């Protein structure tokens, strides 16, 4: 076991699965890079963020395919290839760009199996960067996994750390359903213990990041770290948080969330996605319907305001939910019961 970055964990998962199964291919814009350039290099980039580095060298042009800038075509091709024998892993750089190929994901990939009465399988993965904090502006900073979670037929993974990133990606590649895989651009360099060998982190199984008895804090992706930071600070105030990382938003481990809420009686849901119809509202609704009798305080949701992601640094910092905002929400749920 060694300390590896989130980026390295993703890269390792891709390599291991490509070695294991030669039906696994990788495609996307500049996943190798350098095609036709005057320097005549085989792999100029290995992905715009270096996530696919070394793949071209090891697996060659038949399994590592650069694409023109044509998301509709290559994401659609991913579906066609998956239905007919390959196990493609596409990279759509930023999730924001899936706007271009939304139909292929929403009406093709998500529907095909059901519409065909279960006759088709779509073992494909679409990897995308998401999230704010990069000063990248409104079209390069969105979360959008709630949109894909909304669509039946898709699985959605949002890993929060290098260990889960590797294990979830391996599960996603081995899974016979389409998986949309979200990588937060602000944690690509984050390090953690990652076993060298291949392993699976199951899709649909939450991780209890920190056990506690007073308040359940469910957080998604990068927000898990905000929740952990808040929990550490709150512990000093005598508030004991249970932090849950669902790891996938579809399937969602509702059992783990509900068990925790029934135990603590309080819920704070933290999501970096826009606040309307996001994972926080979804999880709040779940608790309201299934664990109402256990709730000792109104559910609190911590999300950005309902605005696009601003460019200017102070505005973006204000926009992103942070540990202070999480802690504030937790305190509010605790206060509510003691004063009523």
């Amino acid at each position, binding site marked *: 076991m060694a300390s590896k970055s989130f980026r390295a964990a993703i890269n390792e998962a891709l390599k291991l699965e490509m070695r294991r199964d030669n039906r696994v291919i990788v495609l996307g814009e*500049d996943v190798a890079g350098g095609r036709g350039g005057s320097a005549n290099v085989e792999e100029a980039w290995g992905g715009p963020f270096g996530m696919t580095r070394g793949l071209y060298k090891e697996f060659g042009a038949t399994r590592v395919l*650069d694409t023109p800038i*044509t998301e509709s075509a290559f994401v659609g091709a991913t579906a066609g290839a998956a239905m007919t024998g390959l196990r493609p892993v596409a990279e759509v750089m930023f999730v924001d760009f899936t706007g271009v190929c939304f139909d292929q994901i929403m009406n093709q990939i998500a529907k095909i199996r059901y519409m065909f009465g279960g006759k088709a399988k779509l073992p494909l993965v679409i990897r995308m960067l998401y999230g704010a904090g990069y000063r990248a*502006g409104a079209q390069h900073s969105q979360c959008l996994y709630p949109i894909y979670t909304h669509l039946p037929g898709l699985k959605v993974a949002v890993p929060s750390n290098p260990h889960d990133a590797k294990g979830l990606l391996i599960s996603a590649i081995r899974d016979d359903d389409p998986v949309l895989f979200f990588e937060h651009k602000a944690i690509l360099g984050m390090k953690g213990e990652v076993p060298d060998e291949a392993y699976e982190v199951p899709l649909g199984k939450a991780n209890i990041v920190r056990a506690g008895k007073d308040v359940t804090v469910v957080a998604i992706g990068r927000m898990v770290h905000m929740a952990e930071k808040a929990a550490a600070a709150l512990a000093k105030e005598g508030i004991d948080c249970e932090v849950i990382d669902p790891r996938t938003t579809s399937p969602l481990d509702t059992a783990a969330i509900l068990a925790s809420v029934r135990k603590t009686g309080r819920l704070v849901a933290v999501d970096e996605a826009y606040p309307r119809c996001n994972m926080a509202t979804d999880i709040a609704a779940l608790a309201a319907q299934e664990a109402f009798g256990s709730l000792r305080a109104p559910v609190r949701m911590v999300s950005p305001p*309902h605005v696009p992601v601003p*460019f*200017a640094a102070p*505005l973006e910092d204000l926009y992103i939910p942070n540990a202070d905002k999480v802690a504030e929400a937790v305190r509010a749920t605790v206060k509510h019961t003691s004063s009523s």
Partner: protein
Amino acid sequence: MQQSRDQLLKAYRVMSRIREFDERLHVEFATGEIPGFVHLYAGEEAVAAGICAHLSDRDYIASTHRGHGHCIAKDCDVTGMMAEIYGKAAGLCGGKGGSMHIADLDKGMMGANGIVGAGTALVCGAALSAKTLGTGGVAVAFTGDGGSNQGTVFEAMNLASVWSLPAIFVFENNGYGEATASEWALAGGDIVRRAQAFAMPGHQVDGNDYFAVWDAMRQATERARAGQGPSLIECKMKRYYGHFEGDTQNYRAKEEIETLRAEKDCMKRFRAQVGEAGLIDVAALDAIDAEAKAEIDAAVKAAKAAPTPPASALMTDVYASY
């Protein structure tokens, strides 16, 4: 040559200001003070200048992620642009957009764009407005060689032709889309050949040659303003810097850029062209360069000193009314 001395001086001033703006940004970006993604236009100035020389405020352009040159050529305020790039309240978009989203509708500038290929569809709409409202205006979409392969672009060209819109599709074929050469990514080799498929005239010009760009655009605007429909112009040249600031550019040969700067540079070429024709003396052009340097220097200083947007700005501008 059909351009007056004033027109030529103006064109050179546009190129000089673009060059200085982006050369300076290259230096300033390295200090770490500029947030986000910045894509420089240096090396492509003759395109923005030659195209926009035919446009006024009633005409619209839609730009790309590599938009600084288009903004300057469309007469956007450079101080406001610089402040925007620094994320300051005085920026053209109040600091909410950044380099990739600079816009100024009063100047007919419909925005840089973070989504490759998206501007072509917007331009169909602007051209439709011009046609429907009878403004006499035209609308111009700038797209890269990489962007030329997006489905939206094909759809927009077809729509513009079917509706006979006063739209002009300018393709800046600068050799690369990120780290991939257009030679590899463009089936058929030339973008200009696609014009025929959509029943519009196509021009392919040397993008380092201001006069060639200018002349192609003259024909395209005449046609559009006469109600005869869209045109396509493919300009070929190369960018001087990486895809974005920070790009190691290991996909291009080291000598490529040196050769470009030494032998192909559009500003040197312009100087030679007007000099040979005895139209403008060197001193006048040098004076323009000096002015541009001072202007950009002042813009950088102002941007650095300017205040960031207030917290209240986070919640404004989402809706016109809610």
